[in-house]
């Protein structure tokens, strides 16, 4: 039963869980590391799953907490290191190099303003937009009410709209 749940419920979530971790720590290898830690922990405690009501929401809550913890320890580690170059990521370049530069700048701006959002708003936005989760699923994953999810998402989208309107 438990071993089945690991393959039918937990493993199919791995990409979503990874992206949530990545959304928080913004480092692919760290995010993979966190996910591996989580899956390993879940596997080793598979006998205790019966006590968990919503295994899916539990996984999201766990990866969120682990990622936030990792982010804090990463901040301590990075404090001594010189500023690292942002991960180089470009839009698919349909246009000119000039256009590409503008898009890169816009992307950096969105990334930065998302980072400045309060944690709940940022995570609600991410789970809705990137993971396409329902309000109910988000509420369970973040352990908040559905109403709170809506409010957080509304504020996050409003912020994005304001930011983009300036262009």
């Amino acid at each position: 039963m438990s071993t089945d749940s690991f393959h039918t419920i937990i493993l199919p979530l791995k990409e979503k869980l990874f992206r949530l971790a990545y959304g928080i720590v913004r480092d692919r290898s760290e995010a993979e590391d966190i996910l591996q830690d989580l899956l390993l922990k879940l596997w080793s405690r598979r006998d205790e799953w019966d006590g968990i009501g919503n295994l899916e929401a539990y996984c999201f809550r766990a990866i969120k907490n682990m990622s936030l913890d990792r982010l804090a320890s990463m901040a301590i580690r990075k404090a001594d290191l010189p500023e690292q170059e942002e991960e180089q990521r470009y839009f698919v370049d349909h246009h000119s190099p000039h256009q590409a530069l503008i898009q890169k700048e816009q992307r950096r701006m969105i990334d930065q303003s998302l980072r400045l959002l309060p944690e709940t708003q940022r995570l609600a936005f991410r789970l809705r937009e990137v993971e396409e989760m329902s309000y109910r699923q988000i509420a369970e994953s973040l352990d908040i009410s559905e109403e709170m999810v809506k409010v957080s998402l509304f504020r996050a989208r409003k912020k994005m709209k304001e930011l983009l309107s300036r262009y």
Partner: protein
Amino acid sequence: MNREYLDILLKRYWDCETTVAEEQELRDFFSRADLPEEYTQYLPLFSYVGEEQAVTLSDDFDERLQASIIAAGRKKEKEKTRVFVPLLRIAASLLLIGGLAISLFFITRQQNKPYYTETTGSNTDTNTAMQHATHALEKLSDALQMSEEASVETIRSIDDLDIDWFTLDSLSSIAADDSVIVNSLRIIKEENI
């Protein structure tokens, strides 16, 4: 997609009234190469989301996870034996202490056993031992009686001699030589005999 519908959809999107499917529709629209100019300002947001959705795990993640699960299983096994070894040690020491205690108990019990339990066999043996003992005691009693009688006889004969003790004392004080007394005593003894 007509503009009117798109505007309504966008408005509902900002008001958080769109469904997941409608939001997907919007993303599809914004990913079009022929995006109308007036909508380009929102393009970075939808592109950002699309890009974030494209982030996937490394191809070798499953292999690494499997390897780490196997490694963790082995570690657990090792921990199990590591827990088991001290228990074995405790069991061994308990066995040793128990063994020592039991052997010590038997040894001391053997030493405490009275001698007669091993030597006495029957009633006749006890009787002969009693006879021996009585015989020895009778002999001793006879000897004591004889010596007592002899002592009484001696005292009586000394009394009969009517010795002048005062003269004897003065004699001993004048004549420092002990031999005088010894001699006088020997004379008395000879007379007595």
